[in-house]
C-alpha cells in the first residue's frame, strides 16, 4: 500500500543487548537526571507565604474607586460594558436621591454593577474606556472558588471600602499625571 506520509516509522522488535537487558545502567542514568534537579533552582514557590513580584502593569481583580471624599466615582455610563470584548460587565443604573450626595459623586450611579470574572480576559479596556476614573485593574489575584456563581462579582466585592483604600498608583503612569495637570481637560474629572 502506498504511504500517506513520510513520517511513519517501521517498528523493529530487535533483541536487546546484554547491557540493555540488565537495566541497571538505564536506571542509573535516569536517577542521575533526577538528582541533578535537586540542585537546580526551583520553579515553584510556597505561594501564600511567598509571593512573586508582579509587573507594575499587572492586570488582576478590578476595583471601583471612590473619590477623595469617599463617594463612588462610577456613574453607570456603560462605556466599560460596551468596550468589554468578553461582554463580562453588566450594570443597572439608578438616580441619586437628595441626601445621598455623600455616597455618589454624580446624579446617576450604578445600583448593580457585576463583572463575571470567568468571562473577563483582563484586557484593561474597561479601564481605558472609563471617563470617570472609576474602574481600575489591580495587582490582586482573583480568588479561586468551587462554584461558578461566586465568580460574578458584585458591588460588595468591587467597590473599595472607605477605610481600606486600594492602591492603584502603579497604574497612574507619569503620562496620566501629566494629563491630569492639564486644566483644559478638567471637564473629564
Amino acid at each position, binding site marked *: 500500500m502506498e504511504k500517506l506520509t513520510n513520517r511513519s516509522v517501521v517498528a523493529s522488535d530487535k533483541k536487546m543487548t546484554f547491557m540493555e537487558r540488565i537495566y541497571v545502567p538505564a536506571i542509573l542514568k535516569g536517577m542521575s537526571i533526577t538528582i541533578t534537579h535537586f540542585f537546580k533552582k526551583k520553579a515553584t514557590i510556597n505561594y501564600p507565604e511567598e509571593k512573586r513580584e508582579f509587573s507594575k502593569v499587572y492586570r488582576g481583580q478590578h476595583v471601583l474607586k471612590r473619590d477623595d471624599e469617599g463617594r463612588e466615582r462610577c*456613574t*453607570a*455610563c*456603560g*462605556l466599560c*460594558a*460596551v468596550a*468589554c470584548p468578553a*461582554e463580562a460587565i*453588566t450594570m443597572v*443604573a*439608578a*438616580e441619586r436621591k437628595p441626601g445621598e450626595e455623600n455616597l455618589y459623586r*454624580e*446624579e*446617576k450611579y450604578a445600583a448593580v454593577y457585576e463583572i463575571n470574572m470567568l468571562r473577563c480576559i483582563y484586557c484593561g479596556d474597561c479601564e481605558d474606556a472609563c*471617563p*470617570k476614573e472609576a474602574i481600575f485593574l489591580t495587582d490582586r489575584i482573583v480568588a479561586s472558588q468551587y462554584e461558578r456563581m461566586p465568580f460574578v462579582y458584585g458591588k460588595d466585592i468591587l467597590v473599595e471600602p472607605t477605610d481600606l483604600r486600594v492602591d492603584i498608583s502603579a497604574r497612574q503612569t507619569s503620562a496620566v499625571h501629566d494629563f491630569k495637570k*492639564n*486644566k*483644559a*481637560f*478638567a*471637564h473629564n474629572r
Partner: protein
Amino acid sequence: MPLLKVTIDNVEVEVEAGTTIMNAARQVGGHIVPPAMCYYSKLEGSGGKCRTCLVRVAQGSAKDPRPMPKLVASCRTLVQDGMVVENTTSPEAMDSRQAITEFLLINHPLDCPVCDQAGECHLQDLSYVHGLEETRTVEERRVFKPIDIGDKIKLHMNRCILCYRCVMVADQITDKRVHGILGRGDHSEISTHILKAVDNDFSGNMIDVCPVGALTDNTFRFKSRVWFTKPFDAHRNCTKCSGKVVLWMKGEELLRVTGRKDKYGELDEFICNDCRFDHKATADWTIEGPRAIERHSVISQNHYGKQ
C-alpha cells in the same frame, strides 16, 4: 416654473425655486449636507438660530456672480439660479463650524456619561466631527437644577442649546403652548413658570425633537444606555395619532417608545403621549421587525444577549 441649477461642493443639482440651500443639499445627500441643530423641516419657521449650517456662497447667482460677503445660514438662504455653494470644500466654513461648536459647548455640562441622550445626541455627533479635544474656557458654566416641566418630561436646562424646536412643537403641534424661553441673551432659559404644566397630548414630541439631552423621557430616565437597547418598528391602532413608533427593547423588556426618525434625526410622524408613555407592554404593539440602523452607529454596537 423652470428649475434652478445650484452647485454644492462641486455637485450640480436642479431644484425648484424657493428651496433653501440646506434642502437642496439634502436632495443630493451624503456628506455635503450641512449639520443642523435647530432647523427641522417639519416645523415652520425653524432654523437660523444655531449657526452650525453656515456655508460659503462662492457665487451668488448666474446674473450676479459675486460671492456673498459673509457665510450664510444654509437653512434660511434660498437658492438662486447658478449659485455656487461651498460647504465641506470651504476651509472658512469648516473653521466657523468648529468655532460654533465650541460656542454651543460653552455652557454645556459635558455630562454625557449621565445623560440619557448620549448615543443619539446631535451635539455629540457634531462635536465628534467638528469639536476641539479640549475646553479652552475656565469660566463657570450656567447651572440649573433639573425640573419636571411635564408629568413625564424632564428638563435639564444645563444641556439646552436654545434651538427653539420644542417651543415650535408646542406652537404648531399642540393647541396651547405653556412653556417658552424666559429671559434674554445669556440669561435665556426654557421654562414653564409652573412645574408640570405641560400636559398636552402631543407634548412628548418635544423630547424627540430636542437635539440634545435637555428634554428627556422621565419613564426612561436612567433605565438603560441607548446602545444597550434594540429598536423595533411597531404600530398600534391609536385614535389620536398614526401609532407608528419605534420600540426600544432590552431583552423582553420594553423600555422606551419614540417616533420614527429619518436619517437627519427628524420625526416622520408626531406620536401622541398615550403611545409614548402609557403603552409599555409588548402585547400592546404589533411588532413589524427590527429597525435598520446605520452600521457605524453606537446603537448597533455590543448588545447583551443575541436576539
